[in-house]
Each structure stands twice: as structure tokens, then as C-alpha cells.
């Protein structure tokens, strides 16, 4: 009979060298408030979709997830991008104090830049096998599925995304997939329209909202397979140190629809405050 200690060692071996995920293990983002919302972090090996419109903070969140993985948890990571000029990613990261080039020199990080058609042709393995052998990465970011969509026949995105997600799962990597959602206001949410939502295990949506003539950023976990999670829409800011998640939009309703309004109790409180000011 095997002892619990030897079972743990065996599980650790499988995790390190075969890529099998540990049951119930969490992958922390290193952003304390987000990890709290995720009840400890993403589930290990899960495919997470980060969806949002341009400028909503998707790349910052993805980079912070990788950098924290390296710095705080000793988990090497790959950032796979289809952007034309990825050197901007190094520059933008440096503005947050994240020296990606140094992490590359230390063999903890790789920024791989390629064309979506090559990734599709290689089915991932051949393209990344050298990097995977060198780094033994635990985290990967793919920026973005929206770029990939431009290179696949209409209706094939689901199939290709499924292949990508499956490949990374068999390698034991937790993947974060970026999706540029053009339509993030109003009632509809385009991630569900292209049918990606059932492929991924978790969806984090980032969304700009207009409140009292100012644009604020909101984050919500729309789905997390096999785990409880915070359902509230939380305000966040991009600070010089990265993403900082703040309180929920508790005084507003209809924030997801793009036309938030104050809840009745808040209106009442404001009237009450106004009246008491007059009496002073």
C-alpha cells in the first residue's frame, strides 16, 4: 500500500514532468482581490478567457498573471502573441516595473511572436516544443483569439480554439486566452455569440462603464466551472503597479447594460443628505 507521502511525491512528479494537473489545486493570479473573487485562484490547468474591449486592461491583466506567476510563485510562463510589433509589450510591461527581458535571460519567461496561420499549421506542439522543453512553463497567455479568428474559416474558430485549449491542458499548462470583444456595452456580449464560452472553464470580462460622466473600468467573473466565485461587478484601476481591484458597484444597477443608474436606496440617501444639509 502506498503512503500519503509517496502519493504526494508521485502527484508532484506527474505535475512537474508529465504535466498532469493536481486535483483541486489553484493557480493564483497574485492579485489578492481577484484571487479572493476566484476563491483562491483559477483552477489548475483551466482555460480562462479574458474578454474586453480595446483599452479595457486585458493585456495588463494577462502580463500581471504571468509576472506574478514567475516572481511570487516560481511558475515560468509564455506569452504567445500575434501582434505585429511585440516589442511594445516589453516596453509597456517595463512601465509597470516588470522587466520581461531580464526574466527571459533567467529562463523564466518567453514572449513568442508568430502568425496565427503558423500556429494553426503547427497545432501548437511543433511551434512551441523548444520553448516548452527549455522553460517547463506552467502558465501561457494567448493574445489573442480574436487575431486567430481572422485566419480561420467562418465557423471554424470553435474547432481551432478547442484544439488549442486541449493541447495546453495535456501539457498541464493553465492558459489565459485574450478575446477582444467589440461589443461590450448593451445587453449582448459577443463572446457567447461566437460560441467560445462553453470551451473555456472560466470567463473574466473587463468592461468600461460610464458613471456620472466619467469612464470607469469594471471586472466581473461571468463563469467558473466547478467552483464558486464572486458574482459582483467590481471596479478596478490600472495603477503604476498593475491592476488594483476595488469595491463592487454596490450603489448602481444595470452596469452591464451600459446605462447604469443609482439604486433606489442610494437615491433616497442622497435626498436625505441633501435635506439634512439644508437644515444645518
Amino acid at each position, binding site marked *: 500500500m502506498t503512503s500519503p507521502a509517496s502519493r504526494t511525491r508521485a502527484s508532484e512528479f506527474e505535475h512537474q514532468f508529465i504535466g498532469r494537473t493536481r486535483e483541486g489545486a489553484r493557480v493564483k493570479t497574485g492579485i489578492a482581490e481577484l484571487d479572493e473573487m476566484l476563491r483562491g485562484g483559477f483552477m489548475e490547468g483551466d482555460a480562462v478567457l479574458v474578454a474586453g474591449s480595446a483599452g479595457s486592461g486585458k493585456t495588463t491583466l494577462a502580463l500581471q498573471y504571468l509576472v506574478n506567476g514567475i516572481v511570487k510563485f516560481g511558475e515560468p510562463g509564455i506569452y504567445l502573441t500575434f501582434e505585429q510589433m511585440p516589442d511594445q509589450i516589453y516596453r509597456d510591461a517595463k512601465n509597470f516595473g516588470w522587466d520581461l527581458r531580464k526574466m527571459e535571460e533567467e529562463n523564466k519567461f518567453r514572449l513568442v511572436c*508568430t502568425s496565427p496561420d503558423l500556429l494553426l*499549421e503547427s497545432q501548437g506542439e511543433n511551434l512551441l516544443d523548444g520553448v516548452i522543453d527549455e522553460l517547463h512553463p506552467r502558465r501561457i497567455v494567448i493574445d489573442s483569439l480574436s487575431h486567430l479568428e481572422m485566419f480561420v474559416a467562418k465557423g471554424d474558430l470553435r474547432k481551432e480554439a478547442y484544439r488549442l485549449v486541449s493541447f495546453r491542458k495535456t501539457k498541464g499548462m493553465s492558459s489565459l486566452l485574450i478575446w477582444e470583444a467589440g461589443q461590450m456595452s448593451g445587453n449582448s456580449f459577443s463572446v457567447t455569440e461566437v460560441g467560445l464560452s462553453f470551451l473555456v472553464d472560466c470567463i473574466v470580462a473587463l468592461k468600461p462603464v460610464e458613471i456620472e460622466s466619467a469612464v470607469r473600468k469594471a471586472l466581473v467573473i461571468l463563469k467558473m466551472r466547478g467552483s464558486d466565485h464572486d458574482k459582483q461587478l467590481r471596479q478596478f484601476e490600472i495603477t503604476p503597479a498593475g491592476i488594483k481591484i476595488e469595491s463592487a458597484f454596490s450603489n448602481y444597477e444595470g452596469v452591464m447594460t451600459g446605462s447604469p443608474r443609482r439604486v433606489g436606496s442610494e437615491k433616497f440617501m442622497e435626498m436625505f443628505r441633501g435635506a439634512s444639509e439644508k437644515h444645518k
Partner: protein
Amino acid sequence: MSEAQQVIATLLSSQVRGELLVLFHRNSGLVDTVDGVARRIGRTGFAIENDVRDLVKLGVLKTKKIGSSEVILLDRARDREVLETVANHIKSVNRSEQN
């Protein structure tokens, strides 16, 4: 001509080679076809293929088969060696000029 001089001559004798080196140094994880790389520096595949071949011969770039396509990428180890060779050569030239 010394090895260092040959390397420097290969690196500096064409503008395209210079552009390719800058591109791959700024984006050391770039993996793309000749056409894809050419697009990134605003040129055509035809215009850069000879220079790519020279850099592959020098060892700074390497090729790899991905499906039916051939891609080029930076050989990080060889690139470091080449940079060291160039740096040492520049140092020795400076020293001899000072003497």
C-alpha cells in the same frame, strides 16, 4: 580577414541585414516565415531572402519546419557568441588605437 572581421562585414554590408537584426533583437521570440518577417519590416519576402540566408549561414538565425512551412527564428546561443565576438573585436581595435 579574422573571424570577427568576417562577422562584422556580414552584419554591416546590407541595410536589410541590419533591419533584420534589429527586429530579431527587439523581438527575440519571433517565429515567422520569410514573408511574415518581411511584412514586419515593411518589405517583401523576395527582397529579404538572400539576407536571411546569409544570417542563417552566420548562425544568428536558424530555420525550422512547421507543418509545410519553413520558419526563421533567432538562435539565442549563437547570437550571444556573435555579439561577444563583435564586442571583443571592438575592444581590441580601441586598445590598439590607444597604443
